[in-house]
């Protein structure tokens, strides 16, 4: 598995412990005390490294090729799933998946952008960059959920909506606006979970939830660190510095009141243990779905709108007074 530079010390130590165990096993010697000490050291090192990740290190974690994709999460989180295809107008965009799933016995609608799991899959899914028809499909499925009174779960992992010629011709900006607007008024509970990348409008288009949760190693921002660096310094390789400026980590976003909770990942990231990550998300889903499903729908929509209404900071003074 691809390892990051900063986690190499702990990975090396873990490998040494493994070797030592193997050796002891074959030589029938007692080194259990020494091993315990080493394991303690490894645990401390692991904590030290993973609890002090820089924002950009988290961004790279969110992009790890072995990180669960939306379809992986769907199989981890739901007991059954049937996928529905197409926007009924142009084509089926495989960069967004959706359908009906059973969450602990209850039918829910689930939608989310889907990255490819290998090169071939990535080409079919346009590297997880949706076209307008993908968003139209998502909106169609969300309206279907409203009609049949199913809660909606959106799983968000997208660098951004695809900046392509045809995407522009078919109204990329327009469809994002429509998704945001219509989602805001849907008469059914919505739970949004940012599982990996939350790239700008392409993420917000599916992110207007009653509760918005975020995985520990996910990011959510108005612009990707690379694009921000390209604008500021005409150098996208300075993305790490831009990531520091953008305040895109779950900790910052929770503080700002943009998200409601942070879902912790297994130490070392979701890609190291899909099953535990799934169980963790499940417990958050159970709790937050119960909260929003209890509320009368009109109240829920009112609160959904009120939440976004109050976001923003400014001074109520003219520049002459300041």
């Amino acid at each position, binding site marked *: 598995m691809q390892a990051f530079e900063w986690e190499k010390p702990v990975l090396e130590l873990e490998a040494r412990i493994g070797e030592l165990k193997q050796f002891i096993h074959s030589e029938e010697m007692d080194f259990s005390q020494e091993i315990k000490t080493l394991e303690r050291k490894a645990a401390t090192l692991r904590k030290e490294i993973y609890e002090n990740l820089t924002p950009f290190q988290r961004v790279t974690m969110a992009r790890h090729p072995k990180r669960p994709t939306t379809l992986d999460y769907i199989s981890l989180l739901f007991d059954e799933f049937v996928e529905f295809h197409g926007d009924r107008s142009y084509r089926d965009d495989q960069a967004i998946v959706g359908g009906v799933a059973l969450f602990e016995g209850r039918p829910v609608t689930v939608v989310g952008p889907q990255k490819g799991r290998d090169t071939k899959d990535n080409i079919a899914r346009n590297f997880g960059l949706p076209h307008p028809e993908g968003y139209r499909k998502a909106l169609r499925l969300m309206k279907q959920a409203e009609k049949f009174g199913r809660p909606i779960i959106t799983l968000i992992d997208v660098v951004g*909506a*695809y*900046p*392509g*010629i045809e*995407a*522009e*011709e*078919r*109204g*990329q*900006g*327009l469809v*994002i*606006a*429509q998704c*945001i*607007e*219509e989602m*805001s*008024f849907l008469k059914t509970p919505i739970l949004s979970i940012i599982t990996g990348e939350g790239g*700008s*409008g392409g993420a*917000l288009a599916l992110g*207007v939830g009653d509760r918005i949760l975020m995985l520990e190693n996910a990011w*959510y*921002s*108005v*612009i990707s660190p690379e*694009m*921000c660096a390209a*604008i500021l310094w005409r150098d996208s390789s300075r993305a790490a510095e831009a990531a520091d*400026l*953008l*305040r*895109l980590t779950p900790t*910052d*976003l929770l503080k*700002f009141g*943009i998200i409601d909770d942070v879902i912790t990942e297994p130490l070392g990231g979701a890609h190291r243990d899909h099953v535990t990550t799934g169980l963790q998300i499940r417990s958050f889903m159970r709790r937050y779905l119960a909260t929003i499903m209890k509320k009368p729908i009109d109240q829920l929509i009112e609160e959904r*709108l009120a939440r*976004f*209404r109050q*976001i*923003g*900071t*400014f*001074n*109520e*003074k*003219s*520049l*002459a007074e*300041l």
Partner: protein
Amino acid sequence: MLNVFRGKPKYVTVRPQEEPERKDFPDNLWTRCDSCGKMIFTKELEKEAFLCASCGHHFRISARKRLAMLTETANFEAFPPLVAADPIGFPGYTEKIKQAQEQTGLDDAVLIGKATIQGSCCILGIIDFSFIGGSMGSVMGEQLVRGFEKALQEELPVVIFSGGGGGARMHEGIFSLMQMAKTAQAVGKHSRAGLLFVSVLTHPTMGGIYASFASLGDIILAEPGALIGFAGPRIVEETTRQKLPAGFQTAEYALKHGMIDAIVSRSQMLSYVGRLLAWHR
């Protein structure tokens, strides 16, 4: 920036109510058309609503000049001003705001208030490109939302001239992204009450502005040649490594692809919008 070290400050203080001396056009008598290259007598250009007499090119104009073309000062009641804060502590943002304020005499990138256009009362918002690219931060988001809320209260139509090439304002991070949701929802409430929103896209309307309120008009108009789209042309070219089609993302292109209702020349804009407002009274 740090004029403290250079003795006298190099700026003048201006009051927002007054149009300061703008550097829209050079001080000389003649202006070269960006489109056809013809030299135009600047006084003539001003008289002709900043349209090139020979090719019809629409020069970019300030929000105040636009306002003057749509209504008289007496018929425009501006909302109380708001000034940007620095929510994520972005380096240089406060200075950038100050500089933009000094250069434009505006508090932020949108001029908004209650207006009467050809006898019809409405909420009128105009985005000024020269204020940090007409980008949307918390101030623009809040002002637009207040506009739609006031319109909802008083059962008025809303007319917004969007011209923000910057889209969402990067310097406010996630807060500017959220303005897309905030404004789209304000349009939604106003729309669901059966009220009219005319969205006029001027050069350029891109990114987070296009992907939120500006796309949600009951009627979407555009000025000739205006750049309209989600991703900037350079990004599209770099990502796809394809040659962009001629006229890509222009108003004419958007019209052909079914994204807008009509292209309206600046010289016709007042009567066109005036008529729409009258028909929806």
